[in-house]
Each structure stands twice: as structure tokens, then as C-alpha cells.
């Protein structure tokens, strides 16, 4: 019994894993003794029996770009699903915002013959040779949000292009179809940057041709850098009417500046992703909106894909083409934000 209980959580240390194992055992024992069928106890006592088809242990890893709320939430979603399987050892690895570190990690896990790799590439081109190498080794690679330029098993993303079109529409509506907009953007070389920028431009063209994009500057996904970038932009163009932060961190950086300068009511600021801080900012009436994706769910979907492939014995070499999965999303504004449940907030 105790051997089959899943006690592996990617981000936690061995000691916590052991403790976690013990607490699950205690719960299972408690449930058995009292006959209670609580939610947690059900998972612990029925999980192993359900995982019976395969007792072979498999290792799966997630190589993140850098520590961030999005990748942390993905990892939680992944770990949640793997825990129930009982036969998957999951590990989170950090790319430290460096392509060369991610490449070295890819080499290591390919050599370790892991069953699947989840990858958020630091650069779409730089990681392509590693992705090819994994494919040659028969290991499915599932990219999250940032695609790699080499074909691989699957890419699961927050519907960047479609969402950005809707953001442009919502922003333009709030601006009355007139004015100047700036984009605070991700670094070049990541496909998500292109998809969101192109979607936003397309959305303006389609719905609000009267709005002009007067600047498009890089702030490396970072709140602090976005503050500096937006301050500079604002000094040169005091009449900026709208800001599109390509992620929430950068949009919130713009919110910080707008609040300090007392112009938060005059600038329509949109983010992207939908992290907890952004939703709270929308509720306070500061951030105008964002594209919300349930990132826990995105992690769970990715885990589902990989688990089915691995238990079904499907190698990367069996793919005729790269698979795609677009996540459902909500354009969260003051009007719609209440529809996002507490359990979906990350």
C-alpha cells in the first residue's frame, strides 16, 4: 500500500516528499479505519488501484524559462495530475533565463531517457537543435506558450493571436476608438512576442483603425523594466491613451507609473495572461483588462497529453506533424472579472 502511494511533487525536496508520503499514508489509514470517504482520502486510497495498468515508473520534466507566476502555476497543474497517476516522477528544472542553461538541461534529460519534456524555451531558435535531438531520441517535447522553430510533439498555448485581437478590440472600445497606444513587449526571438504583437495590430486594424501604435519597446517580461520603459515613453509622449503590456507583469509596471503620476484614469492599460495580481488590479479599477487563461488547467492539459502518450507507448518519432492546443480564455475586464472562480486564480 505504502509503496504505491504517489509521493512525488516536482518542486519539493526529498524530505518534504517523505513527509508528504507519510501524511498521505496517515490520511489513507484514517479513511480506512473510520470508513470516511473524504475528497483527499478518496484520492489516496483509490489512486493506486486505478493506476494498475502500468506500474513502470516514468520520469517527466518541465524546463521553465525563468521563475515566474505563469510557470509556477503550470508546474502546479502538472504536478497535480502526475500525483494521481502514481507512476510518474515529475521534476521542475529552471532555465535561469539563459538559453545555454536550457540546452544543457535538455541534453541531461534526453540522456536520462525521460518519458516527456515540457519546455518553455528562452528562445525559439536557440532551443530548436535541442528539440530536434529529443525528437531523434523518441522523447515527446511539449512546448508551453513559447514555440520552438523545430517541429516537436505538441505546442500548448494561451491562444496568443486570438486573445490579442480581442484585447485590441476591448482597449479600443474603452478609448472610444481614438488615440495613441504603446506596446511594452517581450524580447525578440520568442514566438509568443510575434503572435501577440501581430494579433494586437490585426485587432486594431480590424476594429479600431483610428488608433495609432506610436511605440513598441522591450521590457523583458519584467515589471521593474516596464516601469522604466513606460516612464521614458510617457515623458516623450504625455498624451498616451493606451498601453498593451504583452504580459501582466509589464502591464502592472505601467500601472505603477500611471498611479504615481496620477493619470491612471486617463490611460487604458491592458495586460495578458491573467495572474492573480492583475485580476485584483482590475477589481480595484486600475488595470483595464487582461486575457485570462486558467494556467493551472493549461498545466493539467499538458500533463494529460504527455501521460496518455507515455502510457500508450507513443514515441516522438510517431508524430506526422506537430500537434497544437489552444487554451480557452476570457477577456477579463471590470465587467467580467467576477466570473473567474477563486480556484482558477493563480
Amino acid at each position, binding site marked *: 500500500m505504502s509503496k504505491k502511494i504517489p509521493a512525488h511533487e516536482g518542486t519539493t525536496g526529498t524530505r518534504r516528499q517523505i513527509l508528504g508520503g507519510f501524511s498521505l499514508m496517515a490520511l489513507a489509514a484514517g479513511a480506512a479505519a473510520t470508513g470516511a470517504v473524504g475528497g483527499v482520502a478518496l484520492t489516496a486510497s483509490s489512486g493506486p488501484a486505478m493506476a494498475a495498468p502500468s506500474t513502470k515508473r516514468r520520469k517527466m520534466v518541465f524546463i521553465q524559462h525563468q521563475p515566474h507566476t505563469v510557470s509556477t502555476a503550470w508546474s502546479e497543474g502538472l504536478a497535480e495530475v502526475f500525483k494521481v497517476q502514481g507512476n510518474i516522477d515529475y521534476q521542475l528544472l529552471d532555465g535561469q*533565463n539563459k538559453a545555454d542553461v536550457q540546452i*544543457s538541461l535538455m541534453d541531461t534529460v534526453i540522456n536520462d531517457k525521460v518519458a516527456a519534456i515540457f519546455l518553455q524555451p528562452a528562445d525559439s531558435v536557440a532551443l530548436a537543435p535541442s528539440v530536434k535531438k529529443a525528437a531523434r531520441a523518441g522523447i515527446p517535447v511539449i512546448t508551453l506558450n513559447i514555440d520552438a*522553430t523545430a517541429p516537436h510533439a505538441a505546442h500548448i498555448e494561451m491562444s496568443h493571436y486570438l486573445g490579442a485581437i480581442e484585447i485590441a478590440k476591448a482597449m479600443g472600445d474603452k478609448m472610444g476608438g481614438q488615440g495613441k497606444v504603446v506596446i511594452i513587449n517581450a524580447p525578440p526571438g520568442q514566438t509568443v512576442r510575434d503572435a501577440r504583437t501581430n494579433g494586437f495590430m490585426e485587432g486594431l486594424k480590424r476594429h479600431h483603425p483610428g488608433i495609432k501604435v506610436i511605440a513598441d519597446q522591450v521590457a523583458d517580461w519584467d515589471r521593474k523594466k516596464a516601469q522604466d520603459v513606460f516612464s521614458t515613453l510617457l515623458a516623450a509622449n504625455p498624451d498616451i491613451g493606451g498601453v498593451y503590456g504583452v504580459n501582466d507583469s509589464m502591464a502592472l509596471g505601467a500601472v505603477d507609473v500611471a498611479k504615481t503620476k496620477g493619470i491612471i484614469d486617463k490611460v487604458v492599460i491592458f495586460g495578458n495572461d491573467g495572474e492573480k495580481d492583475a485580476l485584483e488590479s482590475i477589481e480595484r479599477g486600475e488595470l483595464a483588462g487582461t486575457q485570462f487563461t486558467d494556467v493551472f488547467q493549461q498545466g493539467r492539459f499538458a500533463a494529460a497529453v504527455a501521460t496518455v502518450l507515455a502510457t500508450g507507448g507513443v514515441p516522438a518519432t510517431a508524430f506526422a506533424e506537430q500537434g497544437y492546443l489552444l487554451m480557452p480564455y476570457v477577456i477579463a475586464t471590470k465587467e467580467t472579472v467576477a466570473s473567474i472562480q477563486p480556484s482558477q486564480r493563480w
Partner: protein
Amino acid sequence: MIRTARLPNRELIIVFVVTIAVFCWLSGSFRTTGNLENVLIGFSHTAILAVGQSLPLLLGGIDLSVGSIMALAGMAAFDAYIVLGLPGWIVLPGALVLATLAGAVNGVLIAKLKLQPFIATLATMAAYRGLTYAISGRQIWPEIATRPITDPLIVAFDDYVGHVPYAFFLLLIVFAVVQLLLGVTKFGRDLYTIGGNVEAARLCGINVDRAVIISYSISGLCAGFAALVLVSRMTTSTESLGIGIEMSAIAAAIIGGVSLQGGIGNVFGPVIGAFLLGVVLIGLNLVGIPTYAQPVLTGLILLGAVWYDRLLVQRRARAILAKQAANP
């Protein structure tokens, strides 16, 4: 005398071998030829940087700008190939010349303007990184950022002879040349003299400025080689290439027995130091140590090396005192 006493790096080699043995025992994936390939390709560029870094360190200086020089050389290579369409046989030497010049500028700032090496290279670290952004074709035309470099010559460092990557052969050549420079040439002897006591060296008629400029130029050149290895592996370059890598290079050199006080060390130790750090990182991943605990362990290894270095310094000082007491 002091120099030859440290040459064998005996203790470091023991630690290195024991570390490898422990990971071989703990992880089945570690004791594979695939893993050997990964260690060699993954850390040859760090070892090349560590060899280059040893020269400034031997002078009692430091070169913090190597990561930024890598980015500059890498981006120049990217621009030359992707934007200007130049062939590999022009791109490669061009990037190396640029990296060497960037190193030479460090040397001139230190030798001629009498800036502290730490300050001078801290300034150029920021300046070269800024320059990288300024010349980045990726920033000017983001749509070309997702185009890979395909020139067979530029991407050749990612190829293997058997299980040994070309990048490792490059490291061997760089190591052999620099070790020869240090071991048998007047320049090498001068370097140790300057590192030991710069005023004494000057009084002996050694051209200190020239030695400083050459040393930092070689460090820059090594950064250029490291950049080309990474560009070759990534088939592109990024503005953030090499951020923080100076710390790995300096750590590898110090673990390799190069004294921060200058004048003591060789370049064999730094090579082993770089691969020790690599083996530890890969090993920790394979045995499943959480990712955020790893830098802590790397830090502890560095602390251990510095502590051991202090111990040796004290032991040497005691030996000299004892000798003086014996022959008054």
C-alpha cells in the same frame, strides 16, 4: 618554485574523481557515454572562459566583462550572417577579432588610465551589453529573430568526433597555447612576477602595461571562442547571452587554484574546475535535487575552494617563518 608546487592540482583532481564516482554510483544515467558527451559539450565553453580568466587573475586583476564580450561577439556574428549575409569564413574570424579588441580596451583602461580592474571591467560589462542591444538586428527587425544560422562552418562546433565534441578540441588547443605561454615564455614569467609584486616587476624592467593589455586581450579572445561555441549550438545569438557566466568562469579559476591575490596558479586547474562545476550541476539534476538548491551547493564548493586556498597561504607563510627561524 611556488608555481610548480601548485601545478599538479592534486587535491582538486581527487575531489573531481570522487565527485564523478559518487554520481556514477547514484545515477545510472550519469555513467553513460551520452552523459560524457553532455559534460564535454555543455562545459567546454565555461572551461575556455576559465582559461582566459586565469590571466587577469594571475595579474591580481579580474575580468567581469567576459559575459558581455560573448554577447557582443555573438550578436556581431548573428548580424554578419543573418542581416549582412556574410559567409562563415568571414564571420568567425571577424567575431574573434571584435572580442579580442573588446578585451584590449579593458587592458588599456587598466594599464593606461590606471583604473582598478574590477571597476574598469564592471564598466565595460555594462557598456558591451548595451552595445550588444544597440547592434542587435533582432531588436531592429524582430521578424528576423526567429531565423536560424545555417552556415556549416558556424554551426560546426556542435559536431562530434566519436563521443568528443569539436568544442572540446577547441578547449584543448586554447589550454595548450595558454599553458605554453605561461610555462615557457618570458611573457608567462613576467605575468607571475607582476602578479607577485607589480612594483618589483616594474623595477626589474618588465613592461607591465604591455603584459596587462595582452592578458585582457587573451581573456577577450577566449570569450569570443566561448561565444562561437554557444552560437554554434543555438544557431542564433541572444542579447542576454553570457549573463552571469563571468561568475562561473571566475569560480572555476579559483576552484582550479588560481589565487585572487595574483601570481599563483596555472590553467589546468581552471579547466578541471569548470568541469567539476558542470559535473555537479548535471549530477544534481540526474539524482533529482530540486533546481533551486543547486546554486547553493555551487556556492558551497566555491567557499570550500577559497577556504582551502587560505589554508595553503597560511601554511606557506608558516613554512617561510620556520625556515627563517632555522637559518637566522
